[in-house]
């Protein structure tokens, strides 16, 4: 991957994706070979929005590469609460770290951050925009279970505000994948995402119910219908509880259906699914470590190459 930053999944070619996933597999097979590879480097964790697992996942991945992390902490206790702009904040933090991981409630925040700094920026979620590192671990999980071609993938839930969905749908267009989008009418994929999908000539279909397509699917990617993304609580309550699956629902599915979820789940996947062979969401979450290690390794390697310095192996 010859990229300086990871901002959106749309920037990634098939080769970019496969290079990171190949490296993730190497990392998973032989993590000791990657320990201390970037000793002395520092990664800044800049989370302007609450996050537990993404923050911990990057923190853990960094430390397994020998990278130290500095954490901005909660927004309430930082200079952001004093009204500092994001542009200024990242310019300051750039001086403390060799790369930034950014989560922010506004769409486009990572693009703006990348314009203001010269170290690599990883978008760890920008509002209802993109979450491309999640997509890389999603693709790794799909690849390990099915490969990435000749696939039929169903993506269900909150497709309008779900940034993991926006990134995943874009990345899947690089592969031979039929995509089915299953959501209530009010939560269909947004115009901007549909525009990109159509531009690539991707095979997509949209449905309001899972049942008619369930038996065609190799992968069912379920997302939480997120209360905090709704301007109107009534709209949330109206659709909440729909699009819930349990073990009985999945009796109609193919035996090797892989059920994924970016987590956290609330009640959209019943606990009894955990006991089935379909459940892959915990494996998926664990894949965050080798994939984010591979990603950080790649971006730091690219940055070092840009500086003209040799990486000490």
């Amino acid at each position, binding site marked *: 991957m010859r990229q300086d930053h990871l901002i959106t999944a749309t920037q990634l070619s098939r080769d970019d994706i496969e290079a990171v996933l190949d490296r993730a597999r190497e990392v998973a097979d032989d993590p000791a070979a990657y320990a201390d590879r970037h000793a002395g480097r520092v990664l800044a964790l800049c989370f302007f929005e609450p996050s537990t697992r993404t923050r911990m996942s990057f923190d853990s991945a960094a430390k397994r590469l020998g990278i130290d992390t500095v954490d901005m902490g909660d927004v309430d206790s930082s200079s952001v609460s004093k009204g500092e*702009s994001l542009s200024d904040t990242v310019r300051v933090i750039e001086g403390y770290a060799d790369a930034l991981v950014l989560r922010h*409630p506004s769409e*486009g925040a990572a693009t703006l951050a990348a314009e203001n700094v010269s170290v690599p920026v990883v978008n760890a979620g920008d509002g209802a925009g993109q979450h491309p590192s999640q997509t890389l671990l999603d693709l790794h999980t799909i690849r390990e279970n099915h490969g990435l071609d000749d696939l039929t993938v169903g993506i269900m839930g909150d497709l309008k505000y779900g940034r993991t969905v926006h990134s995943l749908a874009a990345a899947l267009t690089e592969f031979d994948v039929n995509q089915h989008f299953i959501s209530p009418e009010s939560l269909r994929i947004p115009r901007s995402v549909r525009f990109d999908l159509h531009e690539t000539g991707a095979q997509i279909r949209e449905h309001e119910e899972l049942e008619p397509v369930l038996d065609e699917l190799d992968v069912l990617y379920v997302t939480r219908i997120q209360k905090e993304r709704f301007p109107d609580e009534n709209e949330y309550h109206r659709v909440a509880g729909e699009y819930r699956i349990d073990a009985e629902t999945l009796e109609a599915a193919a035996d090797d259906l892989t059920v994924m979820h970016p987590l956290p789940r609330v009640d959209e996947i019943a606990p009894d699914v955990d006991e089935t062979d379909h459940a892959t969401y915990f494996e998926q979450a664990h894949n965050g470590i080798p994939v984010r290690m591979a990603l950080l390794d790649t971006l730091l390697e690219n940055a070092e190459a840009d500086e003209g310095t040799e990486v000490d192996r």
Partner: protein
Amino acid sequence: MSDHELRVSKIRDGTVIDHVEGGQALNVLAILGIDGSEGHGVSVGMNVPSDRLGRKDIVKVEERELSQSEVDVLSLIAPEATINIVRDFEVVEKNRVTRPDSVTGVLSCPNRNCITNADEPVDTRFDVVADGVRCDYCSTILRADIAEHIDV
């Protein structure tokens, strides 16, 4: 003398922006950053009869020749506009507007949650796509309602 020339007189030197869609003349001036403070003579004709458009607006700016890149951004709200450069009462150059690849600092993003609407020190930037423009930051696509988002 034709009807619209009675309303808006000829200029000696400057630029005449003709065949602007009716009602868009003030937006044209806004996009070009012309508010009269520079001291140039500015004449505006609105909703004058036109064979081609039915009703059209005309903008005449004296003592100022607009460059192609300045006027290309007008293609977003006035795709039929013609740009006449006038010297000594004669039209010496007549151009159509062409669609630019991108537009910087002219439009505001309609997505309230876009980082460009968050008091950051940043100009908006839109890519021009097939039937509209697209925010470079949040990817929101703006189509028919472009004129409502002019922010200059």
